[in-house]
Every structure is written in C-alpha cells, then in structure tokens.
C-alpha cells in the first residue's frame, strides 16, 4: 500500500510547501509557475494520527516579520500565528466542500426515496432508515451552513444530482431490500473514502504548519473534527447496510460497481462545476 500512497502524500506535501512561502508568492507568483494540483489520493488508508497535539505549538518563527505589510499572519488567542492559505489550498477547500454538500444532498434524497417502498415490504427497518436519514439531514445542514459562511458556490449540477439521487434511491428500493442496502453500501464506501482523503490532506497541512510553530486556525481545526465525525457516521451506515444483507443483492458486483462508478463521476464533476 505505501507505494500507492506515495503520490498523494507528495502532492499534499507540495501544497503545504508552497504555503510556507506566501510572501514570495505574493511578490512574484508568476515566476513560481505552479500547475494547479488536485489533492487526490488512493483510498483505503484511514487516518490515524491525532490532531490534538497541535495545541502545544510554542515557538513563533519571525522569518516573515519583515514582510508583514504584505501578508499579515495575525495571531490567535493562544498566540500562534495563523498563516493565510495559499491559492491551491483555497481551491482545494472550495471544491472539497462543494462536493461534500452535493454528496450529502444526494444521501438525504436517496434515503428519503428509499424509505416508502422499503418500509412497505420491511416495516421493521423503520427505525434504522429514520436514524440514517436524520443523520444525513444533519450533515447536509452542516455543509449548507459552511458553504454559506465561506461563500462557496454550490454545484451547478444541483438539479441533476437531485433527480439522479431520487431515481437511484427509489429504483433500488423497488428492486428489493438487498439492492437498497447494496446501494447504501456502495455510496457510503465512496463517501467514506472521499472524507478520508480530505481529512488526510487537512491533517497534513496542520502537521506541516505545526512543525513551523503555526496552526491551521480555529475554523479548519473545527472542520477537521466535524469531517471525522461525519465520516465515522457514514461508515456506521455502511456497517448497517452490510448487516442487512447488502451482500446478497442479486447482481451484487454489477450493482455496487455501477453505483460506485457513478458516485466517483459525480464527485469529479462536482469538483469542477
């Protein structure tokens, strides 16, 4: 696995490296011709490192002090400077959070559309469906507020995802309980992986900054915590789906692979538009 992991790591590292010279970037950004990079990494590498040790950053490097009229890293209450984000970091947050909102919109609609046909055949699933739907609504609200706060535009494909998610949820529920659960399994696998990638990139930024005695800032620290909580809840849904015989869906391979491919395409499109 480490070899597959390498390019993603180096990309994230490169982004942080460019953040280390925000001053030179302001003076001569055209000279540092950087291609726009995307923070993609391989799936199935859960993040284990803990962000809690970030609070012990002590020394404040003053190497940028003479340029403080250009970029002013202002200080938090703890006295640790918060560096402004680089353009790549802005772009990453912009597309990542937009994808998150689109994903949660789809999740809410999938569960909402699955519920009536599914409960007709299996009334005992009522509690589970309600629990999962309510959690997704919570996530959706959270990302809506984040998008409004940071002035990120929602995806232009909003109505398309709206329709596609409803059709997907309703269609799989009509096929049967197993198909519906296989759909949940496929979607939550993709979403969980996607959140993992984001958390990994953000923690990488935090580690790099911490090594220089700086922090990501309050907002991003909270964002990491929220992303981890949401990821854990999505993976919990995945477990529920497997417990409810998702693996027994009839064309299991076909169904899950088609849905996962669709999810990845939707994520890719939502990153762009």
């Amino acid at each position, binding site marked *: 696995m480490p070899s597959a992991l390498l390019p993603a790591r180096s990309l994230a590292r490169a982004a942080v490296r460019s953040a280390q010279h925000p001053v030179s*970037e*302001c*003076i*001569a*950004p*055209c000279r540092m011709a950087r291609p726009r990079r995307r923070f993609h990494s391989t799936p199935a590498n859960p993040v284990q490192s803990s962000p809690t040790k970030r609070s012990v950053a002590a020394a404040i490097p003053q190497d940028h002090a003479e340029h403080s009229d*250009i*970029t*002013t890293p*202002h200080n938090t209450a703890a006295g640790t400077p*918060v560096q*402004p*984000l680089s*353009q790549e*970091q*802005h*772009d990453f*947050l*912009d597309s990542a*959070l937009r994808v998150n*909102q689109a994903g949660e919109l789809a999740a809410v609609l999938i569960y909402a559309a699955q519920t*009536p*046909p599914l409960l*007709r*055949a299996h009334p005992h699933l009522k509690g589970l469906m309600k629990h999962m739907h309510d959690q997704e609504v919570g996530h959706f609200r959270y990302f*809506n*507020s984040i*998008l*409004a706060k*940071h*002035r*990120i*535009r*929602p995806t*232009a494909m*909003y*109505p398309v995802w709206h329709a596609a998610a409803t059709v997907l949820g*309703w269609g799989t529920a*009509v096929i049967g309980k197993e198909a519906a659960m296989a759909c949940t399994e496929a979607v939550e696998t993709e979403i969980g992986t996607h959140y993992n990638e984001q958390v990994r990139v953000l923690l990488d930024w935090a580690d790099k900054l911490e090594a220089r005695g700086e922090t990501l*800032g*309050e*907002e991003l620290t909270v964002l990491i915590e929220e992303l981890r909580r949401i990821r854990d809840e999505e993976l919990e849904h995945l477990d529920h789906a497997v417990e409810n015989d998702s693996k027994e869906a009839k064309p299991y391979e076909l169904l899950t692979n088609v849905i996962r491919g669709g999810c990845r395409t939707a994520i890719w499109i939502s990153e762009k538009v």
Partner: protein
Amino acid sequence: MASARSPSALLGTFRAASHRPATAWRQRCSYHSQEYTQPPPFPPAESAILTSALSHVPSYGFTADALRLGARDAGYMDVSTNLLPRGVFDLINYHLVTQRLALKSTVQFPSTGDQGKKLGTGAKVRTLTLARLRANEPLIHRWQEALAIMAQPSYASTSLAELARLADEIWYLAGDESVDSSWYTKRASLSAIYSATEVFMTQDKSKNFIETEQFLDSRLGDVMKMGGFIGALSEWADYTAHSAVNVLRSKGMRV
C-alpha cells in the same frame, strides 16, 4: 543621465509591486474566511495612480489623459501609465473593484429596523444595489464611455466576471444563505437587473435619479413576480407527482 535612469528604476520597483496575477487570484478567491486578513486588492503605487486618475475622469473622461494626469498627481512620471497593461480599462476595473469592496462599509443595516422589525433580504438587496449605483454618480456623464470600453471583446469576460462578483457581494451582504440552484438564478437575475439599471441611469436626467430608482423597483418587482410564479408552478408539479404516486400505491402497485 539621471532622468534616463529614473524611469527604469521606477519601472523596476513598479513591476515588483504590481503583481497582476496575484491581483487576479485575489479577486477570484473561492474560499472566504473571516480568520484571515484580506490583503488590499491593488498594490499601493497602482492604487495611488488610479485613485488620482479617477478624480480627473469627470472632466477628461475615461481616457489616457486622465491616467496621465493621475500619475502626475500621484508623483509618478507620465510614462508610468504604460505599466498598466490594459490602459483605460484598468482604470475602470479599479473603480468597479473598489466600489464593490466599499459596499461592505458604506451600507450598514441596523439589527432591527425603525418599527422594530428586521429588514427583509429583498429590501437589503435593493438598498445595496442603489448604493452601488449611486457610487457611479460622480462619473455618470462619462459612464457610457466606460460601458463601451467594458463591452470590447477583449475586456468583456473580465467585465462580466466583475459583474458576477458584484452580484455575489450584494447577495452575501444582504445575508442570503441559500446554497441550492437558486444561488445561480439569484445572481444571474440581479446581474441582469443591475446592468440594465446602470445603462438606464446614464440617460436619467431626473432630479436625484428618482427615475432610476423607479426603474430598479419595477425590475425587482418583475423578478419577484416571476419567481413567485415559478415557485407556485413547481409546488403544483411536486404536489401532482406525489398524488400520482400515492394513487398508484393505493391501487396496490409496489412503487
């Protein structure tokens, strides 16, 4: 030879300070956060020249003359205006960007209105749009020149992008928090209304631009009516679709 050397020295410092790509990305910053201080949108030398150039626009129009006089006023040589690669359009763009950013401080909404009730988003949008239009007032007799320059093919995309940013700024300052498809329709309709009203204002001879205000109100009213109609239509479609599905379910179909 001092006079020959000083323009090149000036050129060097100016070039270093005028980091156009950085300016460009700052304007299209995607992820906004209150935690980071926003750097000024223009480097100091450029904004000094352009600010004083703007004060010459009422008498000289959006011309190279105004730019040259502005540079002189700011203590730079005439030749320094050559460092603005887009010439007069840079002057217009400076006006557009600074006035857009100024909206945040010029328009303040009280937390509660006079009658103790809060101002609605629509009213806030109207106030902000009017405030932005009023910022064109000192230049309004020259504004058609600016509109003509903005419409040139090489500048049209930049001008449209700036218009979109203005619409975004107005909705943001009005406290609108919708992040669904209406995000796009709101900004598109406000952009259309704003540009139409701006053109109307250049020909408005009424006292205190009262006719412009009426024009804006009727355009906003049109959009309100249209939005209400579309909302009612989609509600009806939604209701009908749900009823149809429920009828099918009541007939025993497994849907």
